[in-house]
């Protein structure tokens, strides 16, 4: 196990390094110096801002020196200052957004797993029944539905037509004056639609994956053995089969993280939720390069961390994996 974790840590550090190279390469996509472009687009740019950017990226030096300088600052979590009028350090702007996005994603993951796992298991156990067919239809439609469109429709239905749920932000304007219980409901009612929309896409994918995993396991010899020795079907399915079918699901959790963090861009923009995704879109429109770069690096870093945690969990629940180590 220790060897396994060490190797994972080594690979991830190298991958984090590769991510910084990628992020650094992206900065240089901008035609000409980023500063020049910045000047053209934003007439109000002060010489001070220009100096900040020049210092941050060392734009007058050779490429490898620039990268080294940037990397050194990155290690000290110095992502420079935002171009926006407040001129706050980028890390500070991002840090205050992380809890919102992470808790939203956590709620989405819980909802996805609590719904998709039973759905997939029942569909597999009752293969070729009406329930299975309905689930398959749901999965195909779920894959094809643009989440932002579904969000709009639900906003029109529940927000505009029925007036049951608020359609933007995290809190009502009169939040401060509400009783604690009412405050809690207010927050919850703002979160229902975003969490549902965020979970929707993953739901279809995971329930299909769960069904496949369950069908695979049911075919195994040890299941036939369990059936042959006369165990009740319930025990065979929910004790012997389900436990094994759940194993690969852990990996899927890791793989779905970039999708979730990336997906928060759409959900947070549609519902005006002040998280990392909304910050990303706002910064792109404002051409606030330091913030955009910081978000890319931190988003990728968080995902890498999540992936590796999933790998370690997988190693704990399934000892076979530590020996063979996935290579695909």
């Amino acid at each position, binding site marked *: 196990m220790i060897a396994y974790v060490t190797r994972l840590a080594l690979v991830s550090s190298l991958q984090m390094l*590769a991510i910084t190279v990628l992020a650094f390469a992206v900065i240089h*996509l901008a035609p000409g110096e980023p500063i020049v472009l910045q000047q053209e687009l934003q007439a109000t740019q002060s010489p001070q801002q220009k100096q900040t950017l020049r210092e941050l990226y060392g734009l007058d030096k050779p490429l490898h020196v620039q990268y080294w300088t940037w990397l050194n600052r990155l290690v000290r979590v110095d992502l420079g200052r935002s171009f926006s009028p407040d001129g706050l350090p980028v890390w500070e702007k991002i840090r205050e957004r992380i809890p919102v996005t992470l808790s939203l994603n956590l709620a989405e993951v819980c909802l996805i797993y609590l719904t998709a796992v039973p759905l997939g298991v029942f569909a597999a156990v009752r293969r070729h029944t009406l329930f299975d067919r309905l689930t398959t239809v749901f999965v195909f439609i779920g894959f094809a539905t643009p989440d932002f469109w579904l969000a709009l429709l639900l906003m029109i239905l529940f927000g505009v037509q029925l007036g049951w749920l608020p359609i933007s932000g995290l809190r009502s304007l009169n939040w401060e004056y509400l009783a604690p219980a009412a405050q809690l409901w207010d927050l919850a009612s703002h979160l229902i639609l975003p969490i549902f929309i965020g979970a929707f896409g993953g739901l279809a994918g995971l329930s299909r994956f769960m069904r496949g995993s369950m069908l695979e396991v049911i075919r195994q010899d040890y299941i036939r053995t369990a059936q042959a020795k006369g165990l009740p079907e319930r025990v065979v399915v929910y004790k012997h089969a389900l436990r094994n079918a759940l194993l690969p699901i852990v990996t899927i959790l890791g793989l779905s993280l*970039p999708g979730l963090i990336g997906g928060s861009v759409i959900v947070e923009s549609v519902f005006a939720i002040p998280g990392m995704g909304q910050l990303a879109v706002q910064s792109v429109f404002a051409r606030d390069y330091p913030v955009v*770069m910081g978000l890319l690096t931190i988003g990728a870093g968080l995902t890498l961390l999540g992936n590796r945690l999933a790998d370690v969990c997988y190693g704990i629940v399934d000892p076979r994996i530590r020996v063979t180590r996935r290579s695909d």
Partner: protein
Amino acid sequence: MGTPPPSVGLAAVWRQLKKNPLALAGGAVVLLLAAVAVAAPLLAPYDPGAYDVKRILLPPSREHLLGTDQIGRDVLSRMLYGARVSLAVGFVAVGIAILIGTVVGVVAGYYGGAADTLIMLGVVDVMLTVPRFFLLLTVIAMLQPSIFVIMAVIGVTGWMGVARLLRAELLSLKERDFVVSARALGAGDLRLMFRHILPNALVPVLVSAILGVAGAVLTEAGLSFLGLGVQPPTPTWGNILADGKANIEIAWWLSLYPGMAILTTVLSYNLFGEGLRDALDPRLRQ
């Protein structure tokens, strides 16, 4: 023993496909959408860019079947032209993704060993780690979001699936007898990779290309919806949806119809792609 694995005959594929009504329906809609996109100028009742301030935000009626938008443009006409943009972006982006994914996957799978580890762990896994939407947004922030930039960016960030697929295929195909004998006859690496092995791995590539179009259409619509895709006044389904969001309290038709177009497109490409995969895969034949 030295011959390549038998290719799947078109007639056999068609026989299989005929048994799958959903895949057939998907294929029909795929063709229909392509025809609509090509014939958009003939089908559109109005000029998609013609605005009329006296006819803003009209609900669907006989004159404007899908209503009008906030500056009085006909939504149906804009959606017909939008089909051209969406499908063009989908096809070009997927073409780019397939090209990159093929080269990367074939090289990694053929050489194996250290090259494989470096490519898969160092490039493919890293690309899979970066939240794709953040990467798309960053690149678009650096470049101006023209239609060509959108195509390129969606393609360049979407090739990893094809690479993994081909790598796995290559790892098994390169050990087969027909490859070994071709090598014994003196075929070079490049010839072996692209002339002998790759043609035998094209089936999964074709399927993932079809499924990829669906994904690219969704991504483009998402970017346009945020205002970071193909820029107005060029009509795209995502642009119209963005207008729908701006007028969410008064004009439901601006939100409903473009989304249905996206849903139909993605659903039919997915059904057709998955049906084709089942039909082409002899292992599922029994």
